[in-house]
């Protein structure tokens, strides 16, 4: 009965247009099609999606009041810090990755994918499940937290190494003032500033603001998300060729880590009082790995880390896994544990 429900959820998810457009993008890459989403449109779609997500989140925070959600916010910070720490130790000591690589990959998993979040909201809405709307604000918390913790881990690990052995085997460049460019990027990068800005605009303008922008930011959302997923399929498809090169351990990590993180996110979400939909969404956020903001930040702060590892893991494996299997899995889990 339970298995049947999980399979049902996966089947329901896989026949939705967003995962199918994603699959089309991958297929087009494999067939060496000329299909391309123009750069300017891609940026436009990003602005649209994050703008819409932010507006709704902001309006919802105003509705429930910021003081009512301090427990979920705390849970969110915990996830953002603990996931990269756990990921680092797994990669460093079980996977034998270098300090830089382990920290950079772990930071990606602590950070979050807004697109996975958007696809999950559509999955839930197709099942008439309503998560707490303010959860999109947590994207803005998780995105920089994971990256900063990942970079901090690398710096601490290198210091420890130096203290223990006199010097590190790995190149250690002291980058004074490393935090400032990272925070600057985290707060003012294209995605971040539109998300944070839209959250504030949504908060200030409230339900009226949502009502007047609904024809654009509401009704068109699903269609725009389909186009965006097509582009993500094209980008992820090009990463698939590198999957074999990253080794069996990282492939296993990129599939097991989201399942573990997603489970913890779902359980934590339920314990801090979120609904089944909300716990699912916290699970999705915990499970997802960043592949837009985090790679750019890691390239600046941990240039010794190999981008092929973190991009292939987060974009080539974890993202497709979550889109196809992860989202229904976390929902099934949330319903199993917290559903009445």
């Amino acid at each position, binding site marked *: 009965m339970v298995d049947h429900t999980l399979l049902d959820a996966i089947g329901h998810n896989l026949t939705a247009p967003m995962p199918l457009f994603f699959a089309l993008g991958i297929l087009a890459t494999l067939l060496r099609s000329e299909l391309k989403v123009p750069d300017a449109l891609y940026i436009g779609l990003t602005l649209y999606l994050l703008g819409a997500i932010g507006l709704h989140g902001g309006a919802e925070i105003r509705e429930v009041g910021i003081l009512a959600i301090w427990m979920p916010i705390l849970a969110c910070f915990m996830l953002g810090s603990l996931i990269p720490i756990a990921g680092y130790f797994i990669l460093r000591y079980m996977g034998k990755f270098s300090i830089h690589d382990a920290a950079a990959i772990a930071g990606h998993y602590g950070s979050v994918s807004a697109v996975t979040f958007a696809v999950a909201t559509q999955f839930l809405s197709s099942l008439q499940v309503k998560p707490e709307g303010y959860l999109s604000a947590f994207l803005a918390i998780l995105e920089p937290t994971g990256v900063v913790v990942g970079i901090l881990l690398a710096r601490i690990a290198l210091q420890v190494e130096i203290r223990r052995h006199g010097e590190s085997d790995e190149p250690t460049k002291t980058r004074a003032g490393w935090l400032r460019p990272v925070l600057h990027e985290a707060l003012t990068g294209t995605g971040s500033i539109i998300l944070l800005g839209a959250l504030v605009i949504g908060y200030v303008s409230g339900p009226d603001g949502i009502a007047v922008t609904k024809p654009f930011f509401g009704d068109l959302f699903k269609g725009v998300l389909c186009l965006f997923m097509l582009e993500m399929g094209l980008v992820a498809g*090009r990463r698939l060729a590198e999957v074999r090169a990253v080794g069996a351990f990282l492939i296993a990590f990129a599939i097991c880590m989201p399942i573990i993180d997603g489970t913890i996110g779902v359980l934590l979400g339920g314990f801090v009082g979120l609904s089944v939909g909300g716990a699912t969404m916290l699970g999705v956020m915990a499970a997802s790995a960043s*592949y837009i903001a985090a790679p*750019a930040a890691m*390239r*600046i702060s941990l240039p*010794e880390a190999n*981008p*092929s590892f973190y991009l292939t893991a987060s*974009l080539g494996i974890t993202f497709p896994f979550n889109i196809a299997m992860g989202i229904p899995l976390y929902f099934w889990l949330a319903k199993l544990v917290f559903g009445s």
Partner: protein
Amino acid sequence: MPMEKAILLTIITERVMEPTLKELVERAGAQGYTIEDVASGWGKHGNRTGQLESDQSFKMLLIVPKAVAQLILQEVERTLQPDYAITAFQHEVEVMSRAPASSGS
């Protein structure tokens, strides 16, 4: 038309290094530069598809005196080359002389 000899310096590197490179060339004494987007590329650092910010490249063009070009290249070699995809090359060029200050502009 009076012409002056100068160096045309071309630097192609990762998008994330744009602020760093701009600061570097200004500190070295460049009086200006032009930035161009790079669609995609391939080299020692793999396939730079241009699809994600971390995967994008840009090209900086500068016209500078020889001494400034040397200084920029030294700094690029010291600070950026070890960790980032970077290509730099120079040409000797003849540049239209600047109009005398008295004629405005």
